[in-house]
């Protein structure tokens, strides 16, 4: 694939042109309201976009909304009419996805297309060009290195921008990205000198790789063998079960289906985000709950990410974005947790190479 570059001014013009053509632009920008947090949202132009700050929300809500209607019904007398929701999606572009967020889309593709192909998800995926922007290396909660990614990872992105003076170096990573670039090539220029871009990437990699790097395979093995372990209840003591970690996780994708009657005549079936951290997630109608305590629920989250999902789809359900640690109001920390499991695994598996953790 080729490398090109784009000036900020040109990018701005490109976005204006896309918007005029009816393409929806999703990019990091400040949310409306009191918090003014940066989130991925629909923007009207380049000036809305805020780069270099990891958004609080993730990209997933643009592919799997927090709540969406998937079916409706209307009743008149004995007649029942079913109203299917459209799965169509107009063309969109995500501009400025963090590499960890772009990668997450591809990670979740596996489950969305597994035993049943989720039309809502894939139609949105197909209608969307994902342009990521190389990360500067993140903060102390980031651990993309540990899960096989990096600040410059291009996974899940059709193109990646690397910040350089006055614009971006553009790396094309997919055929779709190539085609899209060619469609809009008037806005792009030749790659030119790559020194700045390489330096940016090196700085980011250095920052990122200085953080602990727990060994995921041995963690996976330990998890498999330690379903019953005092660690879980100890770990979950401070956890409120609020589920904020799952809500801001780019790879958490569990949902609930609810039927909402809207009067006697009709209603909607909706798909809503759900969280394994809630007691109601597994509560049976009988009142029995197979995951009765926060320990069991927290274990489920860890197992799903680092044992169950890898076993089924051969990859981790985590891109190391660190949002779970940042959002937690009681200071649960994913990197710390993985380190602890790594240590426990090292005791039971003394063969684990110490280099793998790369402790500073």
């Amino acid at each position, binding site marked *: 694939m080729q490398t090109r570059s784009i000036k900020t001014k040109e990018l701005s013009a490109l976005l204006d042109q896309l918007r005029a053509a009816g393409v929806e632009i999703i990019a990091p920008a400040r*949310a*409306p*309201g*009191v*918090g*003014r*947090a940066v989130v991925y949202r629909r923007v009207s132009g380049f000036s809305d976009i805020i780069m270099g700050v990891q958004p*609080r*929300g993730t990209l997933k*809500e643009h592919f799997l909304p*927090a*709540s969406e209607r998937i079916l409706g019904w209307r009743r008149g007398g004995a007649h029942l009419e079913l109203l299917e929701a459209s799965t169509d999606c107009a063309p969109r572009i995500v501009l400025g996805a963090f590499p960890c967020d772009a990668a997450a889309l591809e990670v979740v593709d596996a489950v969305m297309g597994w035993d049943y192909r989720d039309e809502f998800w894939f139609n949105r995926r197909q209608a969307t060009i994902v342009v990521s922007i190389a990360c500067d290396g993140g903060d*102390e*909660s980031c651990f993309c290195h540990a899960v096989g990614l990096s600040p410059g990872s291009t996974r899940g992105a059709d193109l990646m921008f690397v910040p350089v003076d006055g614009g971006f170096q553009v790396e094309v990573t997919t055929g779709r990205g190539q085609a899209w670039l060619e469609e809009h090539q008037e806005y792009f220029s030749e790659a030119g000198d790559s020194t700045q871009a390489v330096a940016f990437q090196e700085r980011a990699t250095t920052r990122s790789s200085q953080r602990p790097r727990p060994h995921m395979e041995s963690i996976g093995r330990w998890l498999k063998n330690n379903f019953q372990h005092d660690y879980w*209840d*100890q770990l*979950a*003591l*401070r956890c*409120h*079960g*609020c*589920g*904020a970690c*799952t*809500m*801001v996780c780019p790879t958490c994708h569990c949902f*609930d289906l*609810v039927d*909402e009657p809207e009067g006697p005549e009709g209603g909607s079936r*909706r798909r*809503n*985000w759900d*969280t394994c951290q*809630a007691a*109601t997630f597994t509560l049976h109608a009988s009142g029995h709950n197979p995951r*009765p*305590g*926060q*320990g069991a629920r927290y274990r489920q989250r860890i197992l799903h990410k680092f044992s169950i999902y890898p076993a089924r789809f051969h990859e981790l359900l985590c891109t190391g974005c660190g949002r779970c*640690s*940042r*959002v937690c*109001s*009681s*200071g*649960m*920390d994913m*990197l*710390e947790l993985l380190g602890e499991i790594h240590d426990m695994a090292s005791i039971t598996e003394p063969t684990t190479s110490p280099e793998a953790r790369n402790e500073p």
Partner: protein
Amino acid sequence: MKELQDLARRLLLEGRVDIVIGYQQGPRGVRPSFVTRPEQADALIFDERCVHNLVTYLSPRRAHLAAWPRRAVVVKGCDTRAVAVLLRESHIDREDIVLIGLRCGGVHRSAEASGPLTAESVAFRCADCSIREPELVDHLLGDPRPAPPGNSRLAERIGQLESMSHEQRREFWNNEFSRCIRCHACRQVCPMCYCERCIADKTRPRWIESSAHLRGNTAWNMIRAMHLAGRCVGCGECGRACPVGIPLGLLNRKLAMVVDEHFDYRATDDPEVPGPLGSFRSDDAEEFIV
């Protein structure tokens, strides 16, 4: 600090409690700490980053804490008001808990904050700190601290909202509530939200729709506020936990002002004071009733 650590160690050594819930340094600022062995007591700290209301961990809904029934909890003066509500609402047995009070001069809004406490960084609830010397506690540690820096942003914000038209206010809240993703983190962290099955999880009938659409979100945020009227102690944990940053504290504070104005009730550390809803006076004002 040593005073606190020594006390925690002693309580555990003497078998007075099974666990001491306090604060420790975490990877990102201060976080709750759970000390079950005397030798762990040295991890306990207390400073102006200790914003968390640890009384939440006394709520009966913390089933995973049931293995440690006798708990000591580190509380600030304001936190004791939450203890009072749990006592009043029959949720804890005073005999089972040891309250370690720490004299507090205000806390940052964020547990990750650094530097001195300023009017900018101080938690909203510190603005009207009224319990400098908590009486409900079993132990009171630390030296007297100066009063926290003043901060009236919450009250100002409420004033601003009140001066708006209904339409403007509605727009403001629609904007806020439309971000809600119905994770119910606000409920989970609230020391007063202890229901076995929250009304929002009741399905027959489903009064509050679980979908994150404006209708369901309005219903949830409205009823949540209503259910906390006269019970909320203003600890702000809900707002701190909200992953989308909805200013829930505004709603809670507003209703606290309402029950103060009309029923002369303010959150208190006295469990004997009846809550304003569930009690009444036969001469309560009723100018809004025809």
